[in-house]
């Protein structure tokens, strides 16, 4: 019955290190990040007419958004509901859920984010290739929801990653999520490559 084995590495060391990372991130992200469009660099902004190129690039980008599977809590099931046959997210070119962030360009943040989870989400976001977008799905992702005053909950994903579209609800219905995606597509359609080429 007794399992007494020597651990290979000192797990205390790993845990102290991880704890320090969490505390650092917690101290440095007390304020929410602003809307990513305000971040745009304006270095190579010129008065060249690029409408057609913009339209073509934006069309390509908005019609095949590949989401990364990074869900933390309840909203997962509404996303799965949206991606299964009934609501059929494939209509938007999104049925390819990637497990690797390097192959994805959309992060759908569903579910409560805790400080312990925050470094992982930040890392995930940083690993995604440009251009990339973020949808905050559900009340917890927007502001912490009913857990907003808890000691271990990040009050909104926008403290950790810049969020493009907020989808309200607890949890949002699949239709609401689809409306949020429609909003994101509209936002992508307004992009122009004369603003520094990439989105941010």
């Amino acid at each position: 019955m007794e399992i007494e084995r020597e651990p290979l590495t000192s797990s205390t060391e790993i845990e102290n290190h991880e704890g320090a990372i969490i505390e650092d991130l917690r101290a440095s992200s007390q304020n929410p990040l602003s809307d990513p469009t305000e971040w745009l660099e304006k270095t190579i902004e010129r008065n060249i007419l690029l409408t057609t190129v913009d339209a073509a690039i934006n069309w390509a980008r908005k019609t095949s958004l590949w989401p990364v599977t990074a869900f933390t809590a309840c909203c997962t099931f509404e996303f799965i509901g949206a991606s299964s046959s009934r609501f059929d997210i494939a209509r938007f070119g999104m049925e390819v859920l990637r497990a690797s962030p390097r192959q994805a360009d959309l992060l759908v943040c569903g579910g409560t984010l805790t400080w312990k989870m925050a470094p992982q989400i930040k890392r995930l976001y940083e690993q995604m290739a440009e251009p990339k977008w973020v949808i905050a799905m559900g009340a917890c992702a927007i502001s912490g929801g009913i857990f907003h005053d808890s000691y271990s909950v990040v009050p909104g994903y926008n403290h950790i990653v810049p969020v493009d579209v907020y989808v309200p609800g607890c949890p949002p219905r699949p239709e609401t999520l689809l409306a949020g995606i429609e909003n994101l597509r509209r936002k992508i359609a307004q992009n122009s490559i004369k603003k520094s080429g990439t989105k941010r």
Partner: protein
Amino acid sequence: MNIADNQELSSHLRTHFGEGIIVHGEYVEITIGKFERVAKYLKESLGYEFLSMITAIDYIDYFELVYRIEAFQNKATVQLKLKCEKVKPVVPSLSHLWYGARLQEREVYDLFGIEFSNHPNLKRIVLWEGFQGYPLRKDFKVKSYDAGN
């Protein structure tokens, strides 16, 4: 063996372990010194085999631990209570009797800061290393909106 209620159980336990076993309604209070032996006796001789729940409560002056142990054979339940002091609280671990006590004791340690002596792997479980304070203690304040009284 069949035990009808807490009164009978406590008088039975008193014959084995002497004083220090008090009945409060549905709960049987036991002193820390005798706790481990009583639990062992309950498990091995009286057939209370299923440790259902361990939790703790902060009563400002002292901590109280609640153990709920069930017997599948005669469908009996005993709820044990254990008082421990606020300064450097240490209670005996039951993890060598019940494998299922391991995670629950770690949880109580994490959220209350109550130490379990002889626990094989006692460290924080749901919070990270370096977190300040023990959240379920009453003196741990969180900002909270006024829900009214």
